[in-house]
């Protein structure tokens, strides 16, 4: 009896702390973004009249869009990673299993070989990413004709399509001129926020934000799918339909990000683990936290990428993967890796 009277208090405590953690990490992200806004190859200075004009222009068209793009890209990867891991009830799942990143890389490389730059290259990468997803859904549909729906089919089909796209990418790389084109392809697949302008950010946001909002609204369906196909159906959720809807939304958001900034490694895989270690439960707070942590990692990585070596831009992925490895090493050696999911 004593136990049940204790319960409400325990629950209120844990909910409060989840909110506290989310608020706190939001504050950290905010400060990080402000700091990041102050760094760059051009010194923003509003003190004198002549500098004010150009400062304002650079701030509006380059600096601010760049930080916002970093926030949105990291946030999208974090949230879609969480959705993939929950839907497939698999701690190794990430947005990459949709094949979108590989497809987009293929599209971008093809555009580079054709001599496209700027928005045309972005469009080619986006088409490549979406085409990979369509192939994935088509393969899963084919395999489902034999009866039983199973989520490992998605993961296997994703591996199949990613590998095919990677093989295609290798063909393009072999055909590429090593001086210019190959370098451009390599740089693209390592991710960078250097080419972000206000216009490109708005295009990315126009696709990514609606998809992200829907993913937040469909959190309940995401959680139900983690029960498994038969168990999801038994509470009235059509597993094949909702897996396709959620994966489509996640893939659209990721395709928008990847086609604009290139491939950013590891964020989608690692962020949900960090968020779950902090809040313990997959509720709305967990998804918000995935957005904030993902955004924090990319903003910090971008800050380091453009300030660490003077007069040069490093690929963001170096730092994203670096953070992920350090964090994984920490929890791994402390024996806190989750097992049995």
């Amino acid at each position, binding site marked *: 009896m004593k*136990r*049940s009277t204790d*319960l409400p208090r*325990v*629950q209120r405590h*844990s909910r409060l702390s989840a909110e506290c953690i989310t608020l706190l990490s939001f504050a950290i992200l905010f400060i990080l973004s402000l700091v990041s806004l102050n760094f760059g190859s051009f010194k923003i200075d509003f003190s004198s009249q002549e500098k004010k004009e150009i400062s304002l222009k650079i701030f509006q068209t380059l600096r601010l869009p760049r930080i916002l793009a970093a926030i949105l890209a990291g946030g999208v990867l974090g949230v879609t990673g969480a959705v993939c891991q*929950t839907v497939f*009830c698999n*701690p190794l799942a990430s947005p990459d299993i949709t094949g979108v990143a590989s497809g987009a890389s293929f599209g971008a490389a093809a555009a580079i070989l054709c001599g496209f730059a700027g928005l045309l290259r972005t469009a080619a990468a986006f088409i490549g990413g979406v085409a990979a997803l369509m192939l994935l859904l088509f393969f899963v549909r084919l395999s489902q004709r*034999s*009866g*039983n729906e199973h989520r490992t089919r998605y993961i296997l089909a994703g591996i199949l399509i990613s590998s095919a796209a990677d093989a295609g990418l290798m063909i393009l790389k072999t055909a590429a001129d090593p001086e210019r084109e190959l370098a451009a392809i390599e740089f693209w697949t390592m991710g960078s926020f250097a080419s972000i302008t206000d216009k490109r950010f708005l295009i990315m946001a126009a696709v990514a934000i609606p998809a992200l909002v829907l993913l937040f*609204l*469909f959190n*309940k*369906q995401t*959680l*139900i799918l*983690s*029960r*498994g*196909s*038969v*168990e999801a*159906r*038994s*509470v*009235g*959720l*059509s597993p094949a339909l909702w897996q396709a809807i959620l994966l489509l939304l996640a893939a659209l958001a990721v395709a928008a990000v990847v086609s604009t900034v290139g491939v950013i490694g590891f964020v989608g895989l690692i962020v949900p683990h960090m968020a*779950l270690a902090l809040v*313990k*439960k*997959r*509720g709305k707070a*967990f998804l918000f936290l995935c957005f904030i942590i993902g955004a924090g990692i990319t903003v910090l990585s971008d800050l380091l990428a453009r300030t660490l070596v003077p007069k040069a831009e490093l690929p963001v992925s170096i730092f994203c993967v670096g953070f992920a490895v350090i964090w994984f090493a920490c929890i791994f050696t402390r024996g806190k890796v*989750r097992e*049995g*999911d």
Partner: protein
Amino acid sequence: MLEIKRLSAGYGGKRIIHEISFTLDKGFNVLLGQNGSGKTTIFRALSGALPGTCGEIILEGTDISGLSVKKRAALVSYMNSEHTAMSGIDGMQLAKMAFYPSHGIFYTPGKKEEEFIRRTAEQFDAAALLEKNLNEMSSGERQLSWLIAAICQNTGLMMLDEPTSALDFNRTHDFLSKLQMQKEDKIIFASLHDPGLALEYADRILLLNEGKLCGEIIPKNTDAAEAEEKLRVLYPGIKIYENGGTFCVSACRD
């Protein structure tokens, strides 16, 4: 009342059950059968999870086989014999999913549903599990959490596949006796592996052998000798005694 007419189902092209027909009334109905005899296939066919299922499934006068996934889940619930241990999801979140069929796609269960879940869990002495994550539970605790979620779904036909397989001795009897409170307005259809439990708690026992129904027992109207004879089809060598109005089961190996 549930009427099943000429039900056939299986996986891929392979039929496991072939044209079986039976009816179930409100109360606790138990399906007994050996491993691989088709118990789970029957449950899954009734819950709509098996494509290519043929036959009529008529629940309280309406054929449910043509209903949408959501409408069907408002009438029929099914608890699998395996219980996924989702990380970061607690007993309360699991039970809240049971309200999905009765609401719109954007609806989130609130205070009223939480109160209902809490009362149900307290009935089964499992209130503490509502706050615990499924991946941190023992397999028995996890099974109880899934059972509470299935009961919260509150459907006219409730199917439980091996509901007590992971529960300890006390919890098994506790659960089955408390389940009796639910049976007045519901058809409960469960599979068990222990004929002793079936004889003690069931209103009616269906015997399944290699995808075919091979008999039934109404424990209230049956004596030990008759029950033994029928059960021997499934379990050769089983012995049943009557002791002070209850059945005792033992396996005789000779």
